[in-house]
Every structure is written in C-alpha cells, then in structure tokens.
C-alpha cells in the first residue's frame, strides 16, 4: 500500500481524533505567533538597573 494512502487511513479516527490533534497544535501555534509578534526591538534598553550578573 502506498504510504500516502496508509497515512490517510491512519487518520480515519473521525472528528474526535482530528480535534485531539488540532486543538493543541492551534494552542502551540498561537503562543509562538504572539511571541514572535510581541518581541522587543533589538536596541531597546532594559528599564531596570539590576541586570543579571551571570548567564546561569
């Protein structure tokens, strides 16, 4: 059997299976999209005067 048709058959679980996968994917994609859009400009200075002294 072709891999493509096998993959289609594997997803024959119905709406519940599609939603089980789609829901978390949408949450993850939304979080990433917001994080990308809201990132601060590279040259913006931190507005507090106690930066971390070390990386870890």
């Amino acid at each position, binding site marked *: 059997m072709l891999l493509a048709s*096998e*993959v289609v*058959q*594997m*997803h*024959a*679980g119905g709406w*519940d*299976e599609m*939603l*089980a*996968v789609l*829901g*978390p994917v949408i*949450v*993850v994609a939304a*979080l*990433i999209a*917001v*994080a*990308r859009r*809201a*990132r*601060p400009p*590279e040259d*913006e200075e*931190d*507005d*507090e005067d106690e*930066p*971390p*002294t*070390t*990386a*870890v």
Partner: protein
Amino acid sequence: MILAHGLGGRSDLPVPLWLALYAAALAVLVSFVAVTVLWTTPRLRGADAGVGLPSILGKVVDAKFTRTVLRALGVIALLIVVGTAWFGPGSSSDNPAPTWVYVWFWVGLVAVSLAFGPVYRLVNPLRTLGGMLRTILGSRAPTIDDELIDRLRYRPALTGMFAFLWLELVYPASDSPHAVALFVTVYAVVHIVAGAWFGPRWFERCDSFEIYFELVARLSPLGRRKDRALVLRNPLDGLLVGSAGPGVTAVVLLLLGSTTFDGATRLPFWSDLRRDLSRTAAIALGTTGLILTIAAVSLAYAGAIWLTRPYLRKTVDGSAPEPYSLFFHSLIPIMVGYTVAHYFSFAVFQGQAGYLLVFGDGRIDYTVLSTGVIAAVQIAAIVGGHILGVISAHDRAVSILRPGYVKVGQYPMLALMVAYTVVGIELVSGA
C-alpha cells in the same frame, strides 16, 4: 487497519484520549497563568534553601563505615551482575541479569534517587574501583587535571548514554544476557581505567549513569545545603543545585528524546513499519528513528530558546547571556515524568522477574496493578512533570527576561511544554 496517534492501540486511559489531552494541556496553561499572577519575584534559592535535618542523620550518612559499606555493596552487586550475565543461562527468561540491569538498576534507581537523593554516587562501583586502581598506580598516575575533564564537555557521557539507549531500544537482542554482559564489561573497564587516570571528577562529568541519577536526584526532597548540611527542601530548589551548561543540557535532551522514541516504538505504526524488515534493516531503521527523535526533541527545545532570546535581559557587560542552558533545569521534571510514565508498569511487572528467577519458579503477578492505576500514574507523572517544569522555568524567567516582557517572553517555553505534554500523553496512551 492501523490508526495514527495510537487510537487503535491498547489504551489504558480511564477517560477518552481527547479529554486527557485537553485536560493535560489546560493544566499546563492554568498553572502558567497562576504562577504569572502569584509568583512575581524569584523565590527559589537553590543551594541556600532547606530545613536542616537532625545532625545525627548527617553523621550516620557521612560516617566512614556507612560509606565503606555502600561502596562494598556496589562492587559486590557489579560482580554478581557481570558474573550472572556472562556465566548464567543464555536466555533472559532464565537469567535475571538483564532484568537487574534494565529494571532494577536503570528504572529502580530513579525511584531511589527521587526518594533519597544522589545515592548512586556513593554506591557507584566504577568510582570505587577507579579510586582503588589510582591508589595502586600511585605516582605513575598523572596529576589530576579537572580543566581537561571540563573541556570534554560531557561528550564521553553522551556517547556512553547513547550506546546504552541504543542497546536497550534498538538492538533486537537487547535482552540477551551476553549482550548485557558485553556492554556492562566494556563500560566498566573504560570508566575504571579513565577514572583511575583522570581522577574522581571523571565520574561527575563523564559517567553517564552517575550523571543521570544525579539529575534525577535533584528532584529529591533530601539534599545538601551550601554548608553541606543534610536538609529537607523544596524539590524545585534542588533543580538549581548542580552543574549547568550546554553539555548537561544535551544529556537531558538525549534522555528526553530516547524516552519519546521508546514510546513511539510501542505504537502500532512502528510495528507495521518493522514487520517485513530484515534484522539489519530493522537496526538501521531503529538507529535512524532514535537519532531523529532525539534531534526533533532537541530542535523543539532549541527553537523555543531561539524565540525566547530577544526577550532576555543583557548581562552587566551588555552582552546577551548564553541562552541554551538557561532553562535546562526545567526539563528535568519533564524527563523524570516521562520516565515514570513509560517505565512504571514495566518496573512493577518485569521487576518481579529479578527475584523470581533467583528464588523460585513463581509467575509474574500482573494483578498487583489495574490498568486504571497505571493510566492514572502515567497521566499524573507527565502532567505533574510539566507543571513543575512550568514553575521552575517561570522562576528563572522572572529574573532573566526583560521587565516589561516577562509574561509574553515565556510563551515559547510554554508552547514547548504544551507540545511535550501532548506528545507524551499520545505516546503512553497508544503504547
């Protein structure tokens, strides 16, 4: 017909899969919202935290007699395992050595480390034998050079761990007593000789198993404070104690990826892929799958850190901090959660073979746990691990992200946690 995402496989979940997935993702999101509201300054104190235990306990633990007994027990156990594996029956159904290694040692010591802290360091027979060999070598052994060990950046540990995981998860005859004997013997000889040559720091930085059990032990409520006192502490404080850096981050990602691969190989999809393959092709497929899964898990982490990077505050000299090891400690509870979820029932059932094969001809009792209990432990371990991960990542984020962006700056790590949670539950539900 084979169904993707494990819906067609054996399912232990007492609730529908979609409900488990949504509830778990929601638990992670709600815990994130709760900590962003209630936890606005760094609270974890690492090695400074902990309530001192009665000093008599510390004296007993640190007594030379206790240490000597533990070391002797470690060496005796190693000799028994190696002897049984080499000279016992040739099948794992008659020889207990593979069960001792894969269940009692590899999984059982996770439980012991979680309960009592880094016990394996005290028992480690390779450390003991390496120290003895160094004493015998005397002045012929080179001067200890800790910088040289540090320059190796955990590469020997990564190599040793990958070899063990490949044996366990890919090699078709992984339960063969002789395969186990060969691995344990070669591993032991390499580390005893290297430990004798380079000194005790070798085991801290290069012995895969000592590093693994030390990472797990960071989640133990028992630990050492900065003043070396034995203390009872918040396990989240323990996560901050110990080495950090790109090397140990890679060790955690390797372990996380291998557990994910182990879950994937139990899906019907994987069995179908392997069905008609020759032994060599199956090994090639398994090796590729293991490497790709570790790479995918690592890339997901690297991607989340890459997205977090613009939100990091600059250090005092104006440079950006090294980002990849900043959040690695938050992966430790996730790694432990996956381990418990994947190996809990295996340890309870297969672990019985370790003494049944020695003391009697009884059968493994599969009724000691119901499938409902197993499923509850699996879900609790994965979700609990991720919630602890969210909290520890948040505590770090509060101190290292730009003040105006603390919440949104955590979204990439939160997305990673949600993704890991969902994949973890999909895998245990389909296994």
